[in-house]
Structures are given as structure tokens and as C-alpha cells.
């Protein structure tokens, strides 16, 4: 029997700490375990007994990179529980918070994590400042990230663990000067965001995976907060019905959980959103990214990164339009009396649908809660794809562990997993027999 074992420990250039353990016997992957290496911090257990007012900042601490998505999902759940309808300005400021997060987070993933694979570099900072093109990419990366960071900071207080969004509204508002500066910064990076799309449009990495896609999407626009949960099969579900869509799967080897939809694996994230709703992108994005958008719908997992790059352009275009066409004024936070109720919040985090649920007692303390994160929903696809990839490489006669490990890491990075969220995971163990 020919056996190969791969143990990839502490996978690099992803969010958090994960490992991958694969055993291949006679060309077949007989064991594939993609698992988080992060110890549980018991955020949902710690919810119990807390005041509802503390929930958004508490759940934000699940994850540094996705924190503002957690803040907004938690706020939505709390507002549902308290029967609070946010103002139109609050909705707009929350959209801007998500656009800031999307620009900053996608840019970090695409430039610092993925581009080194495409240029066969160890690190993005190894790009050659004396090479005109690579130097341009270096400057583009940090300029785009800085603009997204600035947008999130003036609107939400911080790009990590936002302080201004709260249950019922916002506690602080940007000045006209800050808004003007944000518009200027966003306009100044738009050409760079188009160069980013071009980089990923010409990337020839390819791995086909047929699956169902799921995303929270508005009916007539491409957003991250409002709408219905939509599947690639054309089904639509109200947010409140999310628990009928996602079936929990216990992974005894991992500190995280996995999920299925109607007994099958599914994918969430930018590729899901782009496959389902690319015709709802901002009109300027659709005009500027025509050839890239022609590649969708796509079953190439690496097109998740192209979809992320297009979303950066979209978030820039949307944010500019929102900031130019709305005057932001001071508003009082909406408050309602405490009551016993259940609240559900759903947000499209950069990596996909994020679900928060809380059960609140009459005095406003939390009885219990649940958080379902995007990486958990992509877990089964990631494992199945890693197994198939190794089988395909072995069938091609490739048994060099370094080569196999690099191909596995590239594929996993295409999914953009967030292990802080998932445990809340990469270490690869490869065993080929």
C-alpha cells in the first residue's frame, strides 16, 4: 500500500490558527481534517446573564478582523428583541461601516495573503520596490487599506471593535470635513482597486467545485445587511428562518463546528454573493469591471478572490455615493423598554453569512445565544476540496510534500477562512499511503 501523510501545522497568511491533516492511501484521501487550533473562549456561554446592552461589544470580541460585522449582527439581534426600528440614517451609517470593513478586510486578504502566491513570493513585503509594477502594488495595498480604515474610523469610531454603532443608532457622527476627506481618499484609490481586479482576473489558479451558494442579499441592490437569505437554487428565506437552513455538524477533532444545508455542503462569501447577485452591483462597478464580471457565475474556488476584488470596487463606489448624497446629522439613539423576546441578526461579513441569535429575559438579561460564522459554513467544502486536490496531485505523480502543501495552502487561502471566528484554525498533516 502506498501511503502519504501530510501534517500542515499552523497554516500561514490566514486569519487565525488552523491545521490540516490528510491521509492518502492508494491515491484516495481517506482522512481529511481541517481544524481550528484555537482554544474555545466560550463567548456564547459568557453571554448568559449579561445585559442586552453589553451584547454587541461582547460578541465583537469573537474576532478581530470581522469584529464590525459581529457588532452589527449583534445590534440587529438586540433591536429585533427590543422591537426597535432603526432610522434611515442609521441604516446608511451601518452600510458605510460594512463598506469600510469590506475594503480594509478584502484588501488585507488579497494583497498580503494571496498575491505572494501569485508572484511566488514568501511575503508581500518581499515585493521589489525597484520593480515598477510590484512597487505600484505595494503602494496600492496600503493606500486602499488606509482608505477603508479611515472610512470605518470616521463612521464607526474604529475599524476594529467599533465603538459608535449601538442598539438604536449611533453615539457619534462624522464631521463634514471628515466626510469630505473620506470621499477624497476613496476617489483617490479607485484606480488602484481596478488594478487589483485586473491582477485577480488574469490569475490562472483554478479549482472547480460544484456546490450550492447562500447569501443574505437585498432585493434590488448588492449590500451586506438587509434582505433575504437567497440560495443559488433560487430559494428565498426570511432571516428568522435561518435555523431551518443550516444543520449543525459536530467535528470531534476540531474546536469549531460545521454546517450543512439540506444534507449537503454549501459555500458562503464573496463568490456566493457574486454568483447570485452580480447584476445588483453599483452601476459604476459594473461598467468598470465588465470583463471580470463576465467570468461569473463561476465554480472556480479561486474566483472567490476575484469576487472579493470586485467587491472592493463596489464598496468604494457605494460609499462615495452614500457620502456625497446624504447629509449626516446628529440623531438621538432610539430606546425601548426591556422585554422577554428572541432576536436574530444576520449580516454578510466579508467571508459570508454571519448569524447571531439571543434569547432575552424580561429584565433585559441574556438567557442564551447562538453564533454561526461563515468559516463553519464553508468547513465541509474546504475539507472535501483539500481531499480532492491531493488526490488529483497524487494522480499526476506529484508526491513532493512541499509542493502539495503549497497547493493546499493556496486553495485554503482562496476560501479566506477566519479561524478566530471558527473557534474560533492552519497546521497541515499529510499522510499518503
Amino acid at each position: 500500500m502506498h501511503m502519504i501523510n501530510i501534517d500542515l501545522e499552523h497554516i500561514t497568511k490566514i486569519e487565525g490558527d488552523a491545521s490540516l491533516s490528510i491521509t492518502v492511501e492508494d491515491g484516495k484521501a481517506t482522512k481529511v481534517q481541517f481544524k481550528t487550533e484555537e482554544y474555545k473562549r466560550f463567548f456564547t456561554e459568557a453571554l448568559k446573564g449579561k445585559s442586552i446592552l453589553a451584547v454587541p461589544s461582547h460578541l465583537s470580541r469573537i474576532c478581530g478582523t470581522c469584529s464590525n460585522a459581529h457588532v452589527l449582527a449583534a445590534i440587529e439581534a438586540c433591536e429585533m428583541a427590543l422591537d426597535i426600528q432603526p432610522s434611515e440614517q442609521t441604516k446608511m451609517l451601518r452600510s458605510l461601516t460594512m463598506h469600510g470593513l469590506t475594503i480594509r478586510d478584502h484588501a488585507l486578504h488579497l494583497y498580503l495573503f494571496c498575491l505572494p502566491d501569485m508572484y511566488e513570493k514568501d511575503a508581500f513585503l518581499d515585493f521589489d520596490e525597484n520593480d515598477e509594477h510590484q512597487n505600484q502594488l505595494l503602494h496600492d495595498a496600503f493606500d486602499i487599506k488606509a482608505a477603508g480604515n479611515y472610512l470605518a474610523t470616521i463612521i464607526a469610531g474604529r475599524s476594529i471593535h467599533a465603538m459608535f454603532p449601538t442598539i438604536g443608532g449611533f453615539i457619534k457622527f462624522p464631521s463634514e470635513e471628515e466626510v469630505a476627506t473620506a470621499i477624497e481618499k476613496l476617489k483617490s484609490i479607485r484606480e488602484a482597486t481596478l488594478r487589483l481586479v485586473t491582477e485577480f482576473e488574469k490569475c490562472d489558479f483554478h479549482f472547480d467545485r460544484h456546490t450550492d451558494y447562500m447569501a443574505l442579499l437585498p432585493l434590488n441592490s448588492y449590500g451586506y445587511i438587509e434582505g433575504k437569505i437567497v440560495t443559488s437554487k433560487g430559494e428565498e428565506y426570511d432571516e428568522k428562518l435561518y435555523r431551518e437552513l443550516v444543520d449543525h455538524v459536530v467535528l470531534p477533532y476540531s474546536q469549531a463546528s460545521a454546517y450543512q444545508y439540506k444534507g449537503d455542503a454549501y459555500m458562503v462569501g464573496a463568490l456566493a454573493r457574486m454568483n447570485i447577485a452580480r447584476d445588483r452591483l453599483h452601476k459604476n462597478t459594473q461598467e468598470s469591471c465588465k470583463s471580470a464580471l463576465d467570468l461569473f457565475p463561476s465554480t472556480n474556488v479561486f474566483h472567490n478572490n476575484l469576487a472579493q476584488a470586485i467587491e472592493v470596487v463596489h464598496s468604494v463606489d457605494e460609499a462615495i455615493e452614500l457620502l456625497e448624497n446624504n447629509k449626516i446629522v446628529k440623531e438621538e439613539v432610539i430606546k425601548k423598554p426591556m422585554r422577554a423576546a428572541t432576536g436574530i441578526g444576520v449580516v454578510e461579513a466579508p467571508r459570508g453569512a454571519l448569524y447571531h441569535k439571543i434569547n432575552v429575559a424580561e429584565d433585559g438579561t441574556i438567557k442564551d445565544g447562538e453564533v454561526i460564522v461563515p468559516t463553519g459554513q464553508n468547513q465541509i467544502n474546504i475539507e472535501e476540496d483539500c481531499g480532492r486536490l491531493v488526490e488529483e496531485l497524487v494522480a499526476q505523480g506529484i508526491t513532493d510534500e512541499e509542493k502539495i502543501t503549497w497547493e493546499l495552502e493556496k486553495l485554503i487561502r482562496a476560501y479566506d477562512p477566519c479561524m478566530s471566528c471558527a473557534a474560533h484554525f492552519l497546521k497541515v498533516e499529510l499522510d499518503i499511503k
Partner: protein
Amino acid sequence: METDFEKIKIGWFVFSCSEDNTITFTELLNDHWQEWKKIFDFRHVKVLKKNNIYDEFDIAFIEGAIASPEHEEKLKDIRSRSKKVVAVGACAVTGMPASQRNTFTPEQKEAIQFLVDRFGALPEVKKVADVVEVDASVPGCPMNEKMFVDAVNGLVAELRPELAGNKEA
């Protein structure tokens, strides 16, 4: 860019936390990447590179709380290889919120005990200073950006005065 001097060797290690300080560090790169690239050898920084080198460090930044015996051993080993150890962020400096299970009620502790046991976690989560000597701390959740930059500049001045304030070194 090649340099004719030895760069300051940097390690960045993550234990139990949300990695908000890692993300804050990548945001600080927006303004500091050209200056830091000249003087720092990012020797073991998983968020930045694949081929990390684990040998010795001038400055080791520690993010997160210590949740397992493996964490304790790893942290002690990092300490033994590092001239300076800096705890960054609330979980490293105070333990919280990663150590929130330490404060659970007996009923809550009973509810989670099977998971603590399954993965061999410590009975109580610890802050970094509970395990090793810390040379500097940068509190905050996420870490305070100005305090981090001040701490970095202070350590550069102490370890390599010829590089401090001379970003063109």
C-alpha cells in the same frame, strides 16, 4: 531593499484571542511599512509570511492569553529566545476576555467542562505575565496604536540606538 546592517529580529506570536492586535498591526503597516521594512527582519510573523524562522528574536510580541499547557511551554521557549518580550492587547496583558471562563458560575463551568477536558485546556486561562517575565505591555482591545508605536520606538532606541530616529539607516 538590501541593507548593510543587521535588522532587528521580530517575532509575533498569537495565543488565545481574537487577533485584533494582529489586524491593528497590519493597519499600522499602512503608515509604517516602508520605515519598518528597512529596520525590521519580520522573522516569525505568520500573518505576513509562509517561511517563518523560529530561532532567536530581538523583540517578541505576544498576543492572546495562555489557555493550555502547550501554550505555557511555547511561551517559555519564546521567552528564552527573545531579548525583549512585549505583551500586546487586553488578552495578553490582563487575560480578558479570553479568560472569561475563569469567572463563570459553577453551573457554567460544569456546562463547558467536557470541552475544556476534550482539548486539554488549562483549568484557568492565564495572562502572559503569569507565565513569563514581560518587558513591556501595550493594553487595549485592540491594543492602543500610539502606545504600540511608542513601545516599538522605545525598544529600537534601547536595542539599536543607531537605528532609532534614522529611518534611512
